[in-house]
């Protein structure tokens, strides 16, 4: 019995001590990114430009969804999440996760995140209300979830009456082909390509853009890393923008990017053709300013994904900072 008690108390003490030794110097920077989501700074990643410029090694880890990036940031395994979707970021800050938005990584039209309705169902934009009561595959809590809700608003169907099946994009496109679901909302080149074999886009890319639906991926940093190494965050953002400018000038080495993104060259070019990489001035004047695109998005999404336990923040400007833009 005594041994059990001492073991228990010992473990209590050990836990308390380990928690108080949480601080340590940054001997490497740990960055999260996506595969099959090609961005210009992957050239810098391969050429070790980040490692050189930050002065410490950079460890890149790929993730499947932005939500998992947040989980890893909370557990202290990731310092910077590059190209996290805005939806998972909003979910994280609604849950009061100590992370901050420092940069816009990618803006994209609905070519890369979209809802595809099955041809067999006979549903089109005109009679979209028929979707109510039918099944729709949606990866819940991702940008595709946001696109789904916005699309339903545009076509005048009640998203609340649609039966949402929580499926990853790959499964969603398979379910659409099998006729299990009437519509699938997806992201990623391959999934959309497969789904288009059995369906058509609910809204064309242009229609979606006209309706104001578009995607934003952002760079988020843990609060702790931001406090400890503000210079490193600034350098990281600066290099990303440098390579974005290089891409805009058509000077990026697409072969390196394609290889690092685990895609073929044509697919990479096609995907990046649908991406926008706004420069710092544009971000400051159009996106992150008061009433800017990003701030409006944060408000809309914050309320869209709020739950009783994790309500929307009153003011999202507190989780956004332009201090680290070049």
């Amino acid at each position, binding site marked *: *019995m005594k041994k059990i008690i001492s073991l228990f108390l010992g473990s*209590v003490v050990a*836990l*308390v001590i*380990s*928690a108080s030794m949480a*601080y340590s*110097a940054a001997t490497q920077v740990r960055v999260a990114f996506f595969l099959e989501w090609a961005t210009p700074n992957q050239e810098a990643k391969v*050429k070790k*430009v980040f490692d*050189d*410029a930050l*002065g*410490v090694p950079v460890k890149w880890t790929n993730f499947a969804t932005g*939500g998992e990036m*947040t989980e890893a940031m*909370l557990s202290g395994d990731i310092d910077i999440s590059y190209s996290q979707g805005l939806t*998972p970021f909003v*979910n*994280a800050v609604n*849950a*009061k*996760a*100590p*992370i*901050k938005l420092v940069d816009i990584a990618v803006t994209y039209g609905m070519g890369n995140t979209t809802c595809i309705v099955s041809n067999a169902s006979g549903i089109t934009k005109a009679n979209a209300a028929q979707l109510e009561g039918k*099944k729709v595959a949606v990866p*819940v*809590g*991702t940008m595709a979830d946001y696109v789904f809700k916005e699309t339903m608003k545009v076509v005048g169907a009640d998203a*609340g009456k649609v*039966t*949402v*099946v*929580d*499926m990853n994009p790959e*499964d969603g496109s*398979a*379910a659409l082909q*099998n006729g*299990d*679901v009437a519509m699938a909302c997806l992201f990623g080149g391959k999934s959309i390509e497969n789904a288009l074999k059995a369906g058509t886009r609910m809204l064309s890319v242009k229609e979606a853009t006209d309706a104001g639906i578009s995607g934003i991926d952002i760079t988020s940093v843990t*609060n*702790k890393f931001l*406090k*400890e190494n*503000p*210079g490193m965050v*600034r*350098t990281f953002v600066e*290099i990303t923008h440098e390579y974005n400018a290089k891409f805009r000038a058509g*000077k990026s080495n697409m072969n390196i990017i394609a290889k690092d993104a685990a895609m073929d060259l044509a697919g990479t070019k096609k995907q990046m053709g649908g991406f926008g990489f706004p420069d710092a001035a544009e971000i400051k004047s159009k996106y992150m300013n008061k009433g800017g695109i990003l701030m409006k998005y944060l408000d809309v999404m914050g309320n869209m*994904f709020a*739950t*009783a*336990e*994790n*309500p929307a923040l009153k003011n999202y400007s*507190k*989780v956004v900072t332009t201090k680290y833009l070049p």
Partner: protein
Amino acid sequence: MITGFVTFFTIFAVVGAILYGRRLIKTEKSDAVFGNPERAKGGIHWVVVGSSFLLLSWLYYSWDIAKSFYPKSANELCQVAKVNESLLSLKYLFPIVERQHKSTAIIKRENINIEDKIILIKKDSNLKSEDKEIFINILRNTKQMIPSLTDERYIEDDTKNIINELTIRLNQLTKNFPKDSYPDLSEEEENEINEGLNKQLGWGATGMEVPPLPESKIGLKFHAAAAELNSISDEFFEMRNHNPEYLRQSEAIFIEIKEYMDGLEDGLELDYIKDIKKLVRRIEYASIFPPNTLNELENAIRDFDKVQNNEQGNLRIIDIFLFPAGTIVASGPQCSEAGPGRWLPKPSDTFRIFGEMLKPSVGYKMIPMLWYEMMGVNKIIGFILPDWIADIMPGKYPVHNQDGTVDPNFKSKVLDIVTGEFEAFKIPVPTGHIWDSFLRVFLGLTLGIILGVPLGLFMGLNRFAKGFFDPMVELYRPVPPLAWAPLVITVFGIDNLGKVFLLFMVSFSIMIISARAGASGTQLSKIHAAHSLGANKWQIIREVIFPNSLPEILTGIRVAVGMCWGTLVAAEFLAGTTGIGFVENVARKYMQYEVIWITIFVMGMLGLLFDVTIRKIIDKTIPWRGKG
């Protein structure tokens, strides 16, 4: 309140049960030697201790005890966290949380980086020697530039003044901080805080993790100090040690770089010079100061740290002992729990949210957890009876007549019945997430038993059946059921059919194996005896072999239940609209840790329910188990 009561109650229960246990040992007259199973019998009091320990650990590590006994502590610790957060950037400059001065670490690192770069350039055979010379020259100059930042002679008076001023402000704060009169707020500021306080919910209320505005006097002190410290920290980091000497040298370097870059085409040289430029810029950004310039500021920070630690008083002890393995952290004006308080929800919150979710009107994603709905008996009959019954009835379906009506005939009436198109009374039918999961497991299990047991017995008794079915069963049985999941979901769809089939596959193989083992394990003497008494084949199977294999079969069912649960949850992860696994997966995406724990709890309880039921069935049906 309730938590406090429960805490005391469980502590009493533990103490009482231990005392009882010790007394029992002394008073009990037992001649059972070590190894005799008699010694493990009884012992409800140890069950009390075990479950109480579980409950206490949960209460303790979820910080519910802290919340119950010191409900204001989170709010006060939040203010302390604000102070710590505002000081964090400054503290990283000094060997307070680190081993080295930040300036020291940066200089050390950059010197190494410069040397590495020089070596790299020297080795690169693709570079022309004149380029190499230029690069190395720039790098050497950069290295020589560092002393301009670290030499006390060069530091500007303006910079010194700012540092002095900040030090004085910090010392002033340290002096005022312990005073009762601190903080001296204007009426406006006070009103603002009071207004916010009126709307502020308590710790752990729905939608409020940690209330951020100071609710107590001591909290207000820290809150005000954090604001002052933030402004000190911001002002410090706006300042750079860019003295004339440094500017002269760095400008020369940048001009050299620019001159070199002008007219340079894309290529290796450009990459090199860009890298070098970044290195120089990095030194420009870094807060490098002469070794002793910041000493007084450092001391001021240390002094303030001491004072604020003292001022925390009891709070420090509460933090250490009642907030195990974590604490409250601040991120700007927001506070949150970091550590187990975050991912291990408090029992009180968990039960509150569970109670809320159990309300049929709330549920999860508009579907109740477990409720009933009124369903007409006609629908059930329509579901059970296959539609082709109507097709095989004599006659033809009626055709509409000239006055635009349809006269039903016998065949169409039968069709109405088999499709459920008739009026009938309604009965309550269970519905909801828990019921859906339960039903899937139950159906998969039942189908597995109904088909698996006869096949297993058959395989145990018949050479053909054994040889014929063995390859099939043995090939698919060892594959983990989840490996089938993507395939099954593609073939059978994302509805119940696919999930039930997956569970059927799980239970089917287990039932075959156990029934087969039971059948072949029957004692030959019993079969011979039945033969001698004139039993036929059917009687032998029913009266001898089946009862003899029942223990194996029922154990198989217990195993199958566990496997089915594991598979079900994962299947619901993959594609789901209802079910416990679906709830957990969605809750994960919204970071609803309470809901995640609720689903885990519900799954445990349902698994236990299944197991206990089967154990009862075992005790009832095969009382001879384990007795020869």
